[in-house]
């Protein structure tokens, strides 16, 4: 396929994906904004006032980076997993499979669609946080890099989930039983300095812990983990998941009999 044809195919998939989640904006954009606003009000404002400072910041300020990341992670993942599985379920994925679109373009198109939704919701949540705090970004480049990489990692993970999923149950198991606990235990609401040594060690095995802390470093300038290590972990996950997705697509896992 010529490169201009590949670009048109890629653009087609991305536009289709964006059109899909914006068409159902009441299901895709509004609920996360409302949920995160409730976190701001309840945990940040009402409960946070009694907690006081965390990591040298007002509790509300401390949790905002984690809440933004939570929105990015959940929406990037759920967009790709639900969209690609719907294509499988309705068999409209066959439109793509019989066409000459290379596998890496199929993957890139869906992943970028997931990233756009993750970043859009992250943007909405960030905008809402401005009602509660004055946000000054300490390291803008780092902040943008880490949020992009995180959206990419979870879009890729959502794609793998969709490839293996055979039912709607299969696309909710990972977000419910794996993703949500990892996010909540990933330092969104607390500093790891509060944890006993054992639990701090466990947290170190949670990749989301690194993402949240690096993003917090970008926004607030403080982190529980070395930023360089966090970037290496993020990059490693991105490369590993991208390769895994391509291998599975080339094998036709979950797609070709």
């Amino acid at each position, binding site marked *: 396929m010529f490169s201009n*044809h590949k670009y048109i*195919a890629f653009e*087609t*998939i991305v536009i289709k994906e964006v059109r899909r989640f914006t068409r159902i904006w009441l299901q895709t954009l509004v609920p996360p904004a409302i949920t995160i606003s409730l976190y701001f009000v309840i945990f940040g404002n009402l409960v946070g006032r009694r907690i006081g400072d965390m990591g040298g910041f007002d509790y509300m300020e401390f949790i905002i980076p984690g809440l933004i990341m939570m929105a990015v992670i959940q929406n990037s993942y759920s967009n790709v997993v639900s969209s690609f599985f719907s294509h499988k379920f*309705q068999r409209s994925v066959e*439109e793509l499979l*019989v066409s*000459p679109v290379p596998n890496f373009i199929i993957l890139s198109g869906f992943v970028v669609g997931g990233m756009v939704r993750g970043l859009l919701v992250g943007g909405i949540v960030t905008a809402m946080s401005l009602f509660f705090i004055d946000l000054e970004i300490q390291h803008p480049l780092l902040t943008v890099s880490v949020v992009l990489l995180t959206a990419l990692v979870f879009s890729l993970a959502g794609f793998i989930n969709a490839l293996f999923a055979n039912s709607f149950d299969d696309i909710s198991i990972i977000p419910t039983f794996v993703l949500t606990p990892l996010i909540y235990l990933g330092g969104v609401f607390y500093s790891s300095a509060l944890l006993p040594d054992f639990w701090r060690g466990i947290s170190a095995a949670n990749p989301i812990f690194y993402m949240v802390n690096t993003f917090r470093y970008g926004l607030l300038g403080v982190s529980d983990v070395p930023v360089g290590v966090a970037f290496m972990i993020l990059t490693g996950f991105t490369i590993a998941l991208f390769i895994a997705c391509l291998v599975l697509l080339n094998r036709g896992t979950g797609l070709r009999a």
Partner: protein
Amino acid sequence: MTTAIAIKNLTKTYANGFEALKGISLEVAQGDFFALLGPNGAGKSTTIGILSTLVKKSGGTVEIFGKNVDSHVYETKLDLGVVPQEVNFSQFERVGDIVMTQAGYYGMPRKLAAERCEKYLRKLGLWEKRNERSRVLSGGMKRRLMIARALVHEPRLLILDEPTAGVDIELRRSMWEFLTELNESGTTIILTTHYLEEAEQLCRNIAIIDKGQIVENTSMRQLLAALDKHLYVVEVESPIDSVPDWGDAPITAKLIDPLSFEITVDAKLSMSDLFRLFLERGIEVSAIRSKSNRLEQLFLSRLTDSREEGSDV
């Protein structure tokens, strides 16, 4: 002869061990209108699945217009349009968007895609529905939409897997006309269908597949020439108790009810001879009709023959 499709020793064994194709070989000439027939589970859809890359073959080679589908993925897919048996587009998208998106997958610039989209939606009577969500379309419209989608990149080879299943007679006839016109304009068409009349009307060549093997591969004319018996239902004016004795005439008969009987007649016997035999026996015929489609008789006899040969082994 330029070959549109060349299949050699194609095998497919599914993960559960089911052997769907047992080494079939088949050639379809460019410009042909080809019928691939067989009972349910014979291997038709698996063959089409392999041609369209939705099913991974276990062995053998497949070439489309002389290019191997494994080594020339892009070129062979560009030449191919597929209309599947089941509806496989998003039910939430608009009719026009479905066709435009497919054009995008083929790398078609937006202006050209819009022109092609209009051309094929108009030809298939769907232009007025272009802004409707696809889920509101009738069954026949959904099938036509799948044909428009498969044609948007103007492939040289179109594969239709039971395109008229569940479609009313009027629409079926109009689809036949459309497909004939398309074939006459140079598109090679491969058709699977359960309506054998459809294959007889449209196709020039035919392959019958059963239990993963090709049991017949010939021209429609040759196949129909091989038909040696006709089956009719004869309705009579006055009630009869039993079928008459036909003497040496190559006829066997069976009474259905006092006013009708079924006869199997050697193809060599002319209709005039047949009516002479009726007159000689004092039978006043009020109506006579062919009981089954000619191809249907051959189809069933070929399947029976192949299964008997198989059981002898």
